[in-house]
């Protein structure tokens, strides 16, 4: 069997995201009118959830309140088609539509339109999100490639977390959570009115638990144990100006420490993230103009990874976006957008310089309503990306052993276009049919493109005269190209009035035209990851959902996902992807009491990993199918006081070969005012 590790694994990878929509929609007021969630994430055009032409799920604030979940990944895994696996006690990795892999996610994560997907590792560090569940209005999950709206990398979907509006929504809450594993989470949120049409929300949080669950507890591994800690401070300010335009400012800081794992190789890291964002929305004679700019600095003072000596990473992202949303006549809506983005990563001793990426993109969306029942949307985006490197070697004579490139090799550009098309037919009051076609682009990460050029001696001195010392190779490649992903989805929604339930059926066929990675993980007996283009894969799947929600009485729901991957070359993805996943929930609300239980089943998979040492090795190991159960009891003692008891993972299971996930129990007290 051939085994291939994606080159993003184990490496500090830099993936940059595409356009992120500003939150220019007055969610609360539209929801009041239409009595259902509204969104702008699907097409860039405001629309009701039931009208959106894309395949999309929304987790509402009410869902979150009944979930018992402590974090966003736990909420997401209860949706169909989303895989979750644990890298450590405090970290989670998600995948959408298959392709379960550490470091190399294929979906975009946004917080109020700002990319929180971390460029440095090609990863979303969920703990570093500066948001508490109490602040979240809804989490929008869009399926399939969305590059025509969000740019490179949103090839499996987009997760947009939308918080409450600091002007219109008063979120005032304090919460204490205590549990086993020495869990101690505290958070407080306050919203203050600053006069007519202005408000600010401030949130502070401090979470702590003990690390554990490491399967192979060798002394070498145990030194990477690290208690997951998290501190977060965030502010969100908004004001409606005299002319009706809206100005928003957000700032946040998070500081987390965590252990992680990729392919059985451990690292621990401290990750500090700072971000500021400004947005402006105005009604003008040419439509609704939106401008957004943000800057994110991810500073990792240390990354202590088994393959490397400790290093540090600084990752800068600056984004500016302008869009115009307008309607011509009664049936045609348009969105025009431009985006500029600058990325810079300096990865300590992992390379010889600072690698940069400059992006310019233009996009357009057109929606035509043939009738109130039948609509079509088309979107197109063109990206130009300029790669660069400074501070590295300028001539071949200067190059050090690990660096096989000069700065001139990075002087190149990449271009590509993305397309989304969709047709939605509302067959009646109870049925709607959706057909979507998409072409998304996955850009090689900056790590893939060469921000890491590393040649790591395992044993500093030669083992014996004339025999080279064992090494690990990590070589990027500035000559890589974007990979296209084609996706076709068909969805049918049906309201079953007799039982007040909604059912959804979706089927999809996705083709990834190429992957980036190392054919064979071992080169000449040495562990090596050299970025190069390789053959692609095909994923097919089916998602079924049935759901009944009620504030009083019984609530219930469930979903089933079948996904199958076929690889043109053995990348190992098909090992990691569970064929079957089932989620189910049952709840009952009676006055101030709520009882809920959430269950999940995931079929067996296989993981592959690397064994480091003088003679590196790759292995494949089975991971048994498993079920989990998470019960919850809540008592709303008063309108302002809620007590909650929650169990999670009632029996121990493994979703990776390296980490065991044990039962968790906690009690929480929440005060609102």
């Amino acid at each position, binding site marked *: 069997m051939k085994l291939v590790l994606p080159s993003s694994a184990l490496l500090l990878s830099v993936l940059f995201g595409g356009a992120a929509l500003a939150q220019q929609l007055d969610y609360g007021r539209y929801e009041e009118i239409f009595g259902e969630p509204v969104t702008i994430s699907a097409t860039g055009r405001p629309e009701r959830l039931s009208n959106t032409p894309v395949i999309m799920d929304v987790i509402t604030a009410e869902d979150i309140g009944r979930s018992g979940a402590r974090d966003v990944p736990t909420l997401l895994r209860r949706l169909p088609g989303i895989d979750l696996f644990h890298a450590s006690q405090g970290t989670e990795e998600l995948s959408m539509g298959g392709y379960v892999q550490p470091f190399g996610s294929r979906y975009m994560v946004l917080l109020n339109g700002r990319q929180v997907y971390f460029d440095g590792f090609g990863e979303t560090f969920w703990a570093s999100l500066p948001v508490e569940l109490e602040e979240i209005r809804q989490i929008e999950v869009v399926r399939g490639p969305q590059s025509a709206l969000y740019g490179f990398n949103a090839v499996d979907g987009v997760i947009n977390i939308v918080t409450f509006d600091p002007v219109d929504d008063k979120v005032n809450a304090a919460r204490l959570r205590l549990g086993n594993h020495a869990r101690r989470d505290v958070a407080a949120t306050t919203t203050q009115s600053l006069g007519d049409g202005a408000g600010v929300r401030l949130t502070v949080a401090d979470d702590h638990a003990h690390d554990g669950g490491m399967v192979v507890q060798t002394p070498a591994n145990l030194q990477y144990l690290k208690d997951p800690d998290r501190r977060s401070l965030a502010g969100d300010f908004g004001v409606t100006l005299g002319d009706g335009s809206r100005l928003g400012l957000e700032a946040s800081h998070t500081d987390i420490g965590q252990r992680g794992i990729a392919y059985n190789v451990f690292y621990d890291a401290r990750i500090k993230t700072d971000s500021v964002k400004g947005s402006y929305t105005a*009604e003008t004679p040419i*439509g609704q103009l939106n401008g957004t700019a943000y800057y994110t600095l991810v500073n990792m003072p240390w990354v202590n990874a088994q393959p490397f000596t400790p290093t540090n990473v600084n990752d800068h992202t600056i984004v500016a976006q302008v869009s115009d*949303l307008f309607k011509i*006549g009664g049936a045609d809506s348009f969105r025009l957008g431009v985006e500029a983005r600058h990325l810079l990563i300096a990865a300590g001793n992992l390379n010889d310089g600072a690698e940069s990426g400059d992006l310019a993109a233009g996009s357009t969306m057109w*929606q035509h*309503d043939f009738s109130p029942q039948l609509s079509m949307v088309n979107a197109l985006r063109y990206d130009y990306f300029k790669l660069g490197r400074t501070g590295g070697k300028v001539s071949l004579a200067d190059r050090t052993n690990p660096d096989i490139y000069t700065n001139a090799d990075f002087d190149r550009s990449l271009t590509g276009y993305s397309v989304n098309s969709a047709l939605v037919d509302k067959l009646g009051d109870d049925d709607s049919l959706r057909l979507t076609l998409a072409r998304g682009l996955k850009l090689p990460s900056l790590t893939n493109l060469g921000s890491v050029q590393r040649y790591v001696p395992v044993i500093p001195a030669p083992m014996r005269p004339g025999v080279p010392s064992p090494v690990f190779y990590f070589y990027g490649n500035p000559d890589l190209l974007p990979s296209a992903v084609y996706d076709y989805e068909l969805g049918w929604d049906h309201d079953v009035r007799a039982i007040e339930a909604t059912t959804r059926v979706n089927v999809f066929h996705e083709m990834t035209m190429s992957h980036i990675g190392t054919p064979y993980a071992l080169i000449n007996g040495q562990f090596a990851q050299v970025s190069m283009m390789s053959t692609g894969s095909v994923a097919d799947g089916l998602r079924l959902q049935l759901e009944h929600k009620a504030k009083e009485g019984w609530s219930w729901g469930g979903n089933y996902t079948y996904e199958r991957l076929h690889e043109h070359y053995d990348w190992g993805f098909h090992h990691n992807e569970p064929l079957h996943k089932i989620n189910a929930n049952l709840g009952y609300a009676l006055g101030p009491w709520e009882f809920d239980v959430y269950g999940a089943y995931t079929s067996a998979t296989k993981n592959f990993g690397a064994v480091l040492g003088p003679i590196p090795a790759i292995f494949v190991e089975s991971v048994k199918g498993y079920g989990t159960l998470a019960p919850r009891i809540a008592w709303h003692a008063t309108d302002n006081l809620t007590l909650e008891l929650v169990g999670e993972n009632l029996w121990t299971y493994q979703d990776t070969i390296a980490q065991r996930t044990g039962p968790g129990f906690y009690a929480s007290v929440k005060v609102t005012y």
Partner: protein
Amino acid sequence: MLRALAFGTLLVGCLTVSAPCDATSLKDVKVGVRVFDFVTNLPRGKTNLGIIYDPQRRDSADDAQSILNWFASGAVDNRMGLVPELVDVRRLSEVPGLRAAILADGNEPYFDVIFDYARKNGTLTISSDLACVRDGKCSVGVSSQPRVEVIVSQKASVSCGIQYSEAFRMMVTEY
């Protein structure tokens, strides 16, 4: 038995005589009032809201009174500061400068009169009678059953000088 018979008769009446059963519902009014949030050229702050009705028709008068009562009781979230008042459609031309109006049930014969008034005064007219909007006589129509629908007449809105936010235009059906 008599009570059941009376109830049955009323039910049959509701099913066969459309007018009383087409009465504006509280939810229709709640939806209609929220539309004001997305009109960009109406004055902010206290604004008179005419509840237009035909006093010659009992169903119309009852409908208008219900709407007024919902405002008075706080059932309708009136954060916009609307000041509701009953307006006799037959004396509409005597009412100075109404910028916003809700049409109670039973105004069908006066759609042209109302439209002329709205055009002259720049009045936003909201009705739960969608035919008024489809005919281009009312600016906004609302329907809350089986699901909320908001429709906008471009013709009526342009004639009355009513402008909406672009986002709102994309969320509704325009004729």
